């Protein structure tokens, strides 16, 4: 079993239901996000577009985070999920340096690394991840990539414009995007000015290593 995720960006409306349901499901504290939704405005009036892109861990098949973790706190489950062990984690933040997708953070309450687990605990009882259930537009599609009958496998087969983030790093993400765009998926294809924007204060957190 290889569990994978797919977001159809032509359906995503940036509502953040996924992001909030994830907080509720996984007790993700303020200040941190296992899943975030980014908005990008592109173009000049009146030819302007707004892109929405939910970003979470890719559960890479060749995961740099798993590789660099000195204590195997990051480990694979048999279903392909890259899981975190909060008790084992020593908080070295190496995984944060290694993950090319900003998917990991140090949980301010547990002080351990944390990230999306594809809701591994729900999988155990045969339930879809919280954010998949949440999505009002059914932009989130989840399932077994090894099973040709799964919705995700069919979706992947039917769509030609499948993308992953930073494929050149050879991390082999198991998180796909359909009808995406470079602007949405490449962080360097847009500016991320620090400070206040139309919607929020966009900022970087202060130095978070050490004490």
């Amino acid at each position, binding site marked *: 079993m290889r569990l994978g995720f797919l977001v159809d960006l032509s359906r995503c409306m940036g509502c953040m239901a996924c992001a909030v349901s994830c907080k509720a499901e996984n007790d993700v504290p303020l200040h941190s996000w296992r899943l975030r939704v980014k908005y990008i405005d592109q173009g000049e009036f009146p030819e302007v577009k707004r892109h929405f892109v939910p970003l979470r861990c890719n559960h890479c098949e060749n995961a740099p985070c798993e590789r660099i973790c000195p204590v195997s706190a990051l480990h694979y489950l048999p279903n392909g999920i890259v899981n975190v062990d909060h008790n084992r984690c020593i908080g070295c933040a190496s995984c944060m340096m290694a993950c090319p997708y900003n998917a990991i953070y140090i949980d301010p309450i547990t002080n351990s690394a944390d990230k999306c687990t594809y809701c591994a605990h729900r999988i155990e009882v045969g339930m879809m991840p919280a954010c998949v259930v949440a999505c009002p537009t059914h932009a989130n599609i989840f399932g077994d990539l090894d099973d040709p009958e799964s919705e995700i496998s069919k979706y992947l087969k039917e769509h030609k414009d499948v993308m992953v983030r930073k494929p050149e790093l050879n*991390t082999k993400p198991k998180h796909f995007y359909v009808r995406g765009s470079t602007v949405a998926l490449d962080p360097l294809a847009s500016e991320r000015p620090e400070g206040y924007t139309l919607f929020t204060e966009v900022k970087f957190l202060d130095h978070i290593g*050490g004490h």
Partner: protein
Amino acid sequence: MLGAEVTFDVALPKVVWGWLVSTNMWAKSIATGTFLLGLYFIKKYPEKDTFFRKWIPILGLIFIGITLLVTVLDLHHMFRFWKIFLFAHFTSAVTLGAWVVSGFVIVLLISFWSWITGNKKLFDRVMIPGFVLAFFSTIYTAGIMGEATARELWVFPAEMIQMLLSAALAGSATYLLIMALYKVEMEEVKRELGYILIGSAFLSGAMYLGEILFARMHSEFSHRAVEILTFGELAPMFWLGIFLTFVIPIVMVGIANENKRYEYTLLGSISALVGLWLVKHSWLLAPQMLPLS
């Protein structure tokens, strides 16, 4: 203007590894550099080995101590440090580093004992494993940087060479500094140390230049990181570092060696050590200034 702008995002971590990590690398360069150069001089000038047999353990222990201290301090779970030995994950350069450094510490302790007791043989016996451990202690960080896939600026073999050059530079500078402070009269050694310093500074500087120039080809990420380093918010620190590490020492130590005015080495080596920290630090920060997703 790229014509596209993020209008909604959450707060993202910026600097994950900060001054504690730069200090780690810097102190480790001194510890391993002094060790490796020390071995070289002991071998080359066996008649003058007392100096090195004394300072190898002292410098090594002090600076590896600093290294370990900042490493542990940087952990969010300081008191889980031991897990790295119990749950060792050997694909991780962090794990390898921890093991190798631990070995190196043992060698340093032996060398310390050897110096205290005057039992030279003891040290001689661990020289070869010591050499290997010091060598790997120096380069494992490059491994970590290489494994830090996200930070495309750091490329493995280049970082490894930089680590070795830093060790040479830091080691020679530290010895020159000690010699200047304690007014040690070993002209040949000094000259040679001076040339090592100049050489490693030159090579290291040239490599940085090369990396900066070729970053663009490596990936857009590293190109942008280098832009921040060279023209952006990190530029003052980086260029000051470059100046202090490479320009001043080359000039000062050059003058010293040419004109036998060894008092100049004092300034040159201090400058090199300070500069090295700045360069390491800015190089560490640069790829952390960019959003990864």
